[in-house]
């Protein structure tokens, strides 16, 4: 760990050097399966964007990395920590979707020669949103954003794709628009570990940036995946599968029911966004950062239901 911390300090802009560098934890949660727990927080200069869970799957021949973190700094810390666990080549970097906390560290892995893999809609989503993310997060993260580049995948997944890491075949599955329009899950059948990306939130209130109804449907379909443990996009790792889905489904159902009732009553979107889903507030962290946003987008979606 000391080596890692020193390496990290050396990479930081000088104004950070005096601060204690963050310790980057990477734990083996099953044989050959590593996971990193991000903070349940917004991306800031202080946390280097380290808010999402990340992972790595090690086969006999090669490694697949799952998401890269919220900054180049975090991506490099992840790579350094991974190199302490294994020297096998990193053959794939898989992004579970386009959001900055999962993709801003991609640049750290370019020099490993890994192939970047994502949902068929991921290139389009990164192209449409990348420039906005880079400018919007500069205000939140300041120089912790330095060096971040948008690295799109060169291999994309239409439905499912199996990747062989050497006596370890992992299964990537692309989903319809749910949390976002480019959600991908990764299953390691050997260990029974599922990496859900942001199709599963634990403790961190779910974020709907694609389709509320799609998210509900996919959450139901996810439950059929034959896994025993899950690494969620956010929250404690690992968690029992499929029980870990329960809270998220309850939240999405409550929000949907409240929005439908508000639409039926003729409420406007601004009023509905203030109240829908708020019974769930005490169950979640960052509720006030995201619930009104989920409600706003959900209202605009559900308004099209019915005649």
């Amino acid at each position, binding site marked *: 760990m000391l080596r890692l911390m020193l390496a990290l300090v050396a990479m930081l802009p000088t104004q950070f050097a005096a601060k204690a560098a963050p310790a980057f934890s990477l734990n083996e949660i099953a044989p050959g399966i590593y996971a990193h727990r991000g903070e349940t927080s917004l991306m800031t200069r202080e946390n280097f964007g380290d808010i999402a869970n990340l992972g790595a799957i090690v086969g006999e021949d090669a490694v697949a990395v799952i998401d890269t973190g919220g900054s180049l700094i975090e991506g490099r810390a992840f790579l350094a920590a991974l190199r302490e666990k294994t020297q096998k080549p990193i053959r794939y970097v898989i992004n579970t979707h386009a959001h900055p906390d999962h993709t801003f560290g991609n640049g750290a892995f370019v020099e490993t020669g890994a192939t970047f893999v994502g949902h068929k*809609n991921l290139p389009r989503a990164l192209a*449409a949103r990348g420039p*906005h993310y880079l*400018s919007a997060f500069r205000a939140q993260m300041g120089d912790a954003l330095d060096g971040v580049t948008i690295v799109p995948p060169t291999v994309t997944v239409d439905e499912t794709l199996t990747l062989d890491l050497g006596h370890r075949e992992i299964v990537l599955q692309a989903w319809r628009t749910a949390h976002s329009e480019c959600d991908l899950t990764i299953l390691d059948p050997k260990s029974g570990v599922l990496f859900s990306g942001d199709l599963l939130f634990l403790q961190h209130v779910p974020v709907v940036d694609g389709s509320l109804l799609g998210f509900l449907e996919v959450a139901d379909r996810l439950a059929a995946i034959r896994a025993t443990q899950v690494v969620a996009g956010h929250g404690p790792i690992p968690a029992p599968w499929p029980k870990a889905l329960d809270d998220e489904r309850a939240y999405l159902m409550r929000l949907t029911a409240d929005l439908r009732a508000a639409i039926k009553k003729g409420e406007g979107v601004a009023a509905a*966004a203030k109240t829908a889903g708020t019974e769930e507030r005490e169950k979640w962290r960052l509720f006030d*950062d995201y619930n009104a946003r989920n409600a706003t987008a959900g209202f605009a979606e559900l*308004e099209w239901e019915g005649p």
Partner: protein
Amino acid sequence: MNKAPLCAAGALFAFIATAALAQTAPDPWPGLVTDIFQSRPIAAADGVIDLDAPARAEDAAIVPMTMRFSDPTQIKLATLVIDQNPMPMAAAFTLGEKSGVGFIETRVRVNSYSNVHAVAETSDGRLRADAKFVKASGGCSAPAVKDQDEAIANIGKMKYREFKSADPAKREAQIMIRHPNASGMQMDPVSRAYLPAHFIDQVEVFQGDAPIFKMEGGISLSEDPAFRFSYAPNGAKTIRVEAHDNKGGVYKGEWPIGEAS
């Protein structure tokens, strides 16, 4: 009306590069007054027009904005401007002469911290403005289309809704039009070319043959543009809508007006 701001696509890229500086950049409003309002003097709202905007954009792609008019007979044109957006002129509503429109609510994209102006042109030709400051949304919210395949698959579908009106002399309704209303900013991953903008640029709403309003707008309107409004009924049996987009798409809808409630 001067459409120059709508056509300033070349400025989009410059905007993105400098967006991080938006909070300290010079106020764009004086330049917008020149571009959109030909440098005409703009007086305080003085109750003639009132803008209801959220303090913070929750979802950058869907930010509700409501313009209210204390005396609809005075209002000829009401323009909504998102100062810091790549195309600031979001929508300009020309009100029908006897339409009695008391308010118009729509949804816009807000890219970054921005003032939002609602400018009324009154029947004497003078301009009055109300303004609100809107904080940008946080997190991974982007002013982008949620599901591009879905948006294109459903393009042009319309929905009409009626509501109980608080004012017994008025009716209240909403028009919704499926459309990506996309900026065209994104690069096509195959051709590496920037996709052209594709957005609703005009919506006309009538009761019978009498215009309620005509909207001219651009990419600052949210995908699936929606307009909720009140109007003074003239006894017509139907609400009729004709919308156009910048690629020549024409979308029409007509619905019976329900019993007054």
